[in-house]
Structure formats: C-alpha cells, structure tokens
C-alpha cells in the first residue's frame, strides 16, 4: 500500500468503526491480533482489545456491551473450528459482523467460514488494503442492518436455516441423496457428500450452492463411516447431522434371489446404516461427555417396502423393515446424548424406481420428483425438529404421512403346555379377533400415477 492512497477506512456515516479483537480458546499466539489492532487504530478505528483466552460468549458479550460493529478473531490454532458456529450464531443474534484472520487459515477454511456466514476471512499475509476495504464495508453493512439475526427465534416468517450445521449425506451423487444434499446446502448446511460413484458425486457437489465436500467411498466398507466422520471433522471441525440414504435395489422372489444379492441388500441398507449410527453416535456421545451441547440429528432411509412389503422384494422389504426398527431403538439409545434419530420413507422418481417411468416435466409439475422429499429431510435436521425422534415419515408423490407402527393386539391367555386341540380352538379365535389380514401385496408402489 503506497502512502498516497488512504483506503476507505471508516464507515460511510463518519463515526469510527468499533472492533472487538481477540483469539479463541487456548490459541495463545497473539501477535496477529496485535498487528491487526495496530493497523486498525492507525486507520481511525476504535479497537477493544481482548487478547487471548476468549470464548464466543465473552467476545459477544463485550461486543454487545461496547456497541461494537465487528468481532475480529485472530486464528493461529485449529481450535477456531470448535468455536466458529457458536460465535457466528451469537454475532448474528447481536447483528454484529464477524471476521476471521490468521496464518493457519487456508483457502478451504476461508470458503467454509464464508459459507457459514462470516463476513470476511483473511489468510496469511492478506493485503492491508484489501483487509481495510472489507472491514470498512462490513461496518457499513452492520450499520445498515444487513447483518442481522437470520435465525432469530419466534419469527415464523424467517425460514428455518441450517447455517452452521455440518451434515453427512450418503448416496449423494444422484436421486434422492443428491436432492437432499442440494437442499441442505441451499439452506446453509455444510455437506459432506458421499457416494460410490466418484464422477457423479463431483458433478453433484459442483452444483451445491454452499460449502460441500465430496468423499467417494462405498458405504458397505467397514471403515467408511470413520472415513466420513474424519473427513467432516477435518474439514469442518464438527458434525451435526447424518443422512443415511445410500441404497440399492435387487429384485427377485425368494426362490430366485441369490446370496450375493441378499448380502448386498442387507449390507447397504442395514449394516451400513447401523455402522454410521455407531460411529457418529460415538462421536456425539464423546462431545456430550466433554460437556458440549450436542444438537445432532440422524435421518435413516426406510421405504414403503419395509413398512408394508413389496411383492417379489422380500429381501429389500426385510432390509427396509430392519431400518424402520433400527430407527426406533437408536432413537431410544441416543436421545440421552442430544441426538434425534428418524427415518424417511421416500417415494420419488429415481434411478431405483424405473417402474415410475420418465418424468413428465420438471419438479414444478412432477409430484414424484425427489426435490419434494428433500425439505422434509432438511426439516428433520433443523432446530425445529429437536423434539422429534424415533419417527418414520412417508413422503413423496404429493403426499406426506406418518405410518402407524406395529401395535400389540388384544391379549388372550396362552394355556400352559397347550395341546394341539386347544391350539386349534384358540388360534382361529385370536386371529379372527385381530381383524382381516393385510391382504395381498401390490407390486411396488400402490399409487403409481402413471400406471
């Protein structure tokens, strides 16, 4: 910066900008905070210098008390990832700008923090002129009220936002998973998108408007859940959601479905979902035990096949039924750690539902488009669904419902050491009181509009 050009240091209204500056947690390297403070003071800013050992709460409290325009965090340690979301939330609540700067911030960090809502992010040796320009324009935006609470509670008009949440989505390259990941990204979540098809996955991620990170892997591999969790933590420092969506269809009556297909169906739908819950659940438990508030949600994928049965899809139906029950029991186990577990039974036109035929047009006219299921999944991952757990929601084809689960029937007494004659009397009676059987299964989805 030449001495002749004085960058637009101050806000448009002429009052000096007020900036709270500090580091987070135990990040003791303070020199960056000192240097930026000196620079700002030289350019007419008022700096409230907090030095080291700050929490998001303290930075925000001082910003409120001092009527600051911006909180500036100097970063020299990865700890910032653990605090970023909370600090962003607090700054948004106050309507205060938030800027990160520091030598360890990479381009990836920059993109992520900006996607989560930071107003500016400066990496190593960022130009003074550029920093001053961005800080100045942030002050202007703050004073213009543009930086305000997007997640303010009690405002039904404000759309529920997933900003700051990190969600793992499996099977994200196409179909429902791709629609979920896109919707989550659109609502502000950072997405770890996984699929076995690396090329399609990269295309899908390229379409996502927010921060997304592709991880190509096969969910049936034993280490896949760990790989995904580690990728999420490395990339974003935390994880708030899991959408276990990867699926595969192998059709055939029992007499014809071979072991390979059976194993594949169980591995993809049941074992993979179970392992994902075990690994992410373990992480959330550790977070909870470390004294941090866990606000996590898992959405598993069952199907009408698992709830009602599809003809000639015994293995697929059994696997999906297992997922429905896994949802109920996992919800019971994980709720104590702040984790909700629900399942979606989607009905949509995807690569797995060729029987639905081609789409009549875009999602605007096609009730069977995967895009219509995605907002349900996004809602289950958001703050409004914190109390919802252990539920299965069926959605798609223009309808949404909560299917009734198995219920205990009217009990009859079971005689000790019942004789064949007693059985012959009792069982028809019990069965007839239970009402008529479910009836013959229909082939695949019963309400196929094109059939």
């Amino acid at each position, binding site marked *: 910066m030449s001495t002749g050009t004085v960058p637009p240091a101050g806000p448009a209204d002429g009052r000096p900008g007020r900036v709270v500056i500090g580091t987070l947690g135990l990040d003791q390297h303070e020199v960056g905070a000192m240097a930026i403070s000196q620079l700002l003071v030289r350019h007419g800013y008022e700096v409230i210098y907090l030095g080291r050992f700050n929490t998001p709460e303290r930075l925000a409290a001082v910003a409120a008390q001092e009527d600051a325009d911006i909180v500036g965090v100097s970063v020299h340690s990865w700890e910032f990832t653990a605090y970023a979301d909370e600090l962003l939330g607090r700054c948004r609540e106050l309507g205060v700008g938030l800027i990160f700067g520091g030598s360890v911030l990479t381009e990836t960090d920059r993109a992520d923090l900006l996607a989560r809502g930071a107003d500016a992010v400066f990496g190593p040796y960022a130009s003074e002129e550029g920093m001053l320009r961005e800080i100045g324009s942030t002050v202007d935006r703050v004073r213009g009220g543009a930086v305000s609470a997007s997640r303010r509670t009690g405002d039904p008009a404000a759309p529920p936002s997933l900003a700051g949440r990190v969600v793992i989505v499996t099977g994200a390259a196409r179909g429902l998973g791709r629609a979920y990941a896109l919707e989550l990204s659109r609502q502000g979540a950072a997405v770890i998108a996984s699929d076995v098809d690396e090329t399609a996955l990269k295309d899908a991620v390229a379409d996502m408007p927010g921060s997304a990170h592709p991880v190509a892997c096969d969910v049936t591999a034993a280490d896949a859940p760990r790989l995904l969790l580690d990728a999420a933590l490395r990339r974003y420092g935390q994880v708030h959601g899991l959408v276990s969506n990867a699926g595969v269809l192998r059709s055939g009556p029992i007499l014809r479905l071979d072991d390979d297909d059976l194993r594949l169906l169980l591995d993809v739908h049941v074992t993979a979902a179970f392992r994902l819950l075990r690994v992410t659940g373990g992480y959330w438990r*550790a977070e909870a035990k470390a004294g941090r508030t866990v606000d996590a949600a898992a959405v598993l994928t069952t199907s009408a096949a698992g709830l009602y049965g599809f003809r000639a899809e015994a293995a697929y139906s059994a696997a999906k039924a297992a997922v429905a029950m896994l949802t109920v029991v996992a919800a019971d186990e994980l709720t104590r750690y702040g984790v909700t577990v629900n399942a979606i039974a989607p009905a949509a036109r995807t690569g797995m539902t060729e029987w639905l035929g081609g789409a009549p047009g875009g999602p605007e006219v096609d009730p069977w488009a995967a895009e219509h299921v995605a907002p349900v999944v996004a809602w289950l991952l958001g703050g409004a669904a914190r109390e919802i757990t252990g539920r299965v929601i069926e959605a798609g084809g223009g309808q949404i419902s909560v299917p009734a689960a198995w219920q205990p029937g009217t009990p009859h007494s079971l005689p000790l050491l019942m004789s064949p004659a007693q059985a012959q009397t009792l069982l028809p009676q019990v069965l007839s009181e239970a009402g008529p059987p479910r009836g013959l299964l229909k082939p695949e989805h019963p309400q196929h509009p094109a059939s």
Partner: protein
Amino acid sequence: MTRPFYTPADVSGDYSAIGDPGSYPFTRGRLRGSSGWIQRELSGEGSPRRSNEQLRSLLAHGALGVDVIGDNPTMSALDPDHPMCVPAVGTTGVSLCRKQDFLELLDGIPLDRITLSHSLPPAFAIAGQYLAARDSGLDPAVLRGSAIQPPMYSQDCSYSTFLPFGIRMRLTLDSIVFSLREMPRFHAFLEDTYYISDGGLNIVEEMSLGLLEIREVCRRLLARGLPVDSFAPRIAILVNCRMDLFAEIAKIRATRRLYARMMREEFGATDPRSWSVNIAVHTSGLTLTAAQPANNIVRGAMQALAMAMAGVQGLEISTFDEPFRTPSDIAHQLAIRTQQIIEAETNVGAVQDPLGGSWYLESLTDELEGKIGDAIRRTENLGDLGALVENGYFRNIFTAAMDRHSSAVQQGELRIVGVNEHVVPLEDDQFLRDVAEERFRPDLDHIERIRAWRTERAQRPLLASLDGIRAASADSDADLLRPIVAALDADATIGEITGCLREGQGLPADPFNFAAVAR
C-alpha cells in the same frame, strides 16, 4: 547499513578479540567433537503414546536428540479435560498432565544415550522427566537435554501459564537448583530466544532480551548463594535463524563473545566451561510461507547449512508444513535428512568456524555485539526487570515487532518469494498442500482416559501433596520443586498443581477467573 563489499579496514585486526575455537572469548565457539551437532526435530502430537511413536520414528530416522512440545493446554499448564482445553488436546503438541503421561511419552526412549529437550513448562517437565527416569530404573544423574526457562516473557509470548511473575521466577530458580543437584548433566536453563523473536523481533532485540533474562536469572541464583561456576556451564541458548544468513551467523558469534565477557568479567566465573555458551538453533517458522510450501524445504536447508557453519551445538529445522501444523511424518523425515545431508555430504563441519576471518562477517559480528550490548545496558538502566515485565514494557516491544514485520512485508521492504514476489494463483500452488493442510482431531479418547483415571487415584496422599504445594507457594522462601515432584508422584495433575500454586498466592485456582481479574 550493509555496504557492497568489505575490506581489512572494516575489522579491528586484533585476533585476540576473536580467539581460537575453544578459547576465550569463544567468538568461534566451543571445540566440537567429531560427532558434530545434535540433530533433532520438534515433536509431540496427540496422546503421550502417539507422541512416543513419533519420537521412536525420529530416532529410527537417525535423530540424535528429541525436542518435545506440548499442546496448547499443556503449554498453559491446564489439564486436557478442562472445558477450555477440549478442542485443543493434542493438536499442536503432546498432551501431558501427569506422571503416567511422562512415562508413556518416554517409554523405551534411551534417555541415557540421547538428549531430551523440553519445550514445555519447565518445572513440570523437569519433575516429570526425573520421575520417568527414576520409575524406569534409570539414574536421573545420567539425563541430558534442556528445559526452556521463560520466566520473563512467556506471559506475553504465547505460553502463558496464568501464574504471576514472582511464581514463574521461583519455578525457574527452583527447577534449576533441583536439576543441578539431581540431573547434573542436564541444561536446566535453556534461554529460548526463538519463541520470543519469531513474532518479528530483529536480531538485536532477540539477543538483548535473551541475555537480559539470562542476567536476571543469574543474579537471582547468585543472590541465593550459588557460585556462578556451579550453574553457568548448565546454561544454553536456543536462538532463532531467519533468512539473512550472515547476520544470523554473526549474531551467534557476537552472542558467544558477549556471554563469555559477561560470565568472566561481570559474574566472576573462573571455570572456562562457564564462559563458553552452548547455542542451539531452531530455524524460523516466520520465514516460512503458506504459499508454495515446498519452498520452505529450500529455506530450511539454507538456514540449516548456515547454522552448521556457525557451529551450533544443536539444530532443529522448522519443517515445510510449519505454517499449517505441527510437523507431519514426511516433513519430519525431510528435516532430519536435510541435517544428515549437510553433515555427511557437504563437509562443512570439517573445519570449525569456516567463515571466521571474513571481513564482512567479522565486521558484522563486531557491529551486532556493540548493538546488543547497548540494548542490554539501555534496558537495565530503566530499572528493575521484574517491574518492566509487569508494566508491559516488553509486551510493547513484541507488539511493535509484529506490526513492523507486517508492514515490511506489505510494502515489499522484506522480500518473500511467493508472498510479495513471484506469487502464483492457488490453483497452480497445489504441490505438498495435501500434506501441509491435513488436519486431525483433538484426542477425545485421551480426555476420556484422564477423566476415568482421576476417580481411581488414592485421595489421601494426593490431597496431602496438594496441600504441600499451597503451603510452599505461600512461603516465598520455600522450594517449589520438591513439592511438585512429590505431587506428581502422588498422581496430582499439572493443572491441579498450578491451581494450588495460584491458591497459595491468594488467587483463584481456575485460571480463567484469574485471567478475567488480571486483565
């Protein structure tokens, strides 16, 4: 200001002011044995067990010593399960908070054959190493290595332990005295000018502040009645090395001379071992760049070559991924190999002080000696150093230095390839980024381990030992090291011990209350 060339007119011509290697005033260093310098690298990552594997790996690659740094909680003397610590456990160094951690860290490390340097809160490092040696059946008297003593500047330079200056100084003095008695081959007083200067101090500031701290500690040891020759040979200095290589070499030569004169003429040392200071170096992390990280390998190699020619006793290269993280495996290996190549292939170690007699270097050495000496005198004329520490005098120097450094880079006065020259767009700057930018999680399992272990401890001896810490802290004449060794031995944690040190001073045990009050 550097001139285009130098001539005999630029040097005094009095060789006795320079002297032979191994002779007063030690401009040219100690006489070095055939083994060269101690090749080591900064290490420590995750749990003590994981760090132990890292130490073993470095030694397997041929490192001749190890230098261990703690993670942010450990450097702050806090336990990993403290709420402020959880996100930082193990990510920037090893997590150490109890005797068992030192045993696990040093398990199977041949402490009788290699040197162990601590970049850790020194009193705890010395106590922990002592206990680890004793419990593994090794006589602590054979231990070699060093512990950084940072009583004056740590609070302002990244390594706050939330203890008042008086206690920090007592910990320094008591741990030196303890070590002289129990670990006589160990350098219990390593003056670290690296960490204070890598925020942008210049050479004169770096060495004047370092020598000021040495002088202050020496005066206080003398005031306790220790003869200077009992402790001076156990002092070492760990200096920085930036990119102005002749200036860095001259700095080391000037420092040796200032140190020798100070010891002999001011403090009255008569043992020649007291006059010749042991100087090790850690190459500058600040000179390394996040842009084009492979360039840092070149920078490290050039700095290391210069330091080998300066005749340092120990050398650590800041690894190429230093702008991003603590060293990765491959970065460690490259740094050790760099040292090995210099040592084995270049032959620069064959002759001691090979650059001695260069008109430029001798002139620069004289000039720096004068400037550093002047800066020391100026500061000492300001009054009591402890008061200067507490008044923020040094803090202002650190602040101004970083600001000066940033401005110099912004304005292109300090030329840095890849930063203000020869910049390439990020998409063309991917080589080695995957390694450099890789991150790992805090070690939550280790936190759980510590939590579970806490409840299993025998309470009575533990509480008695902590009472001993409080009492010693409150009594300004009491020794702190014996109680600390006893408390660690009774399974007290470093966080608990520092909490009791604070309580003995009438401060709250939890440093975050203390920090809030002190600000």
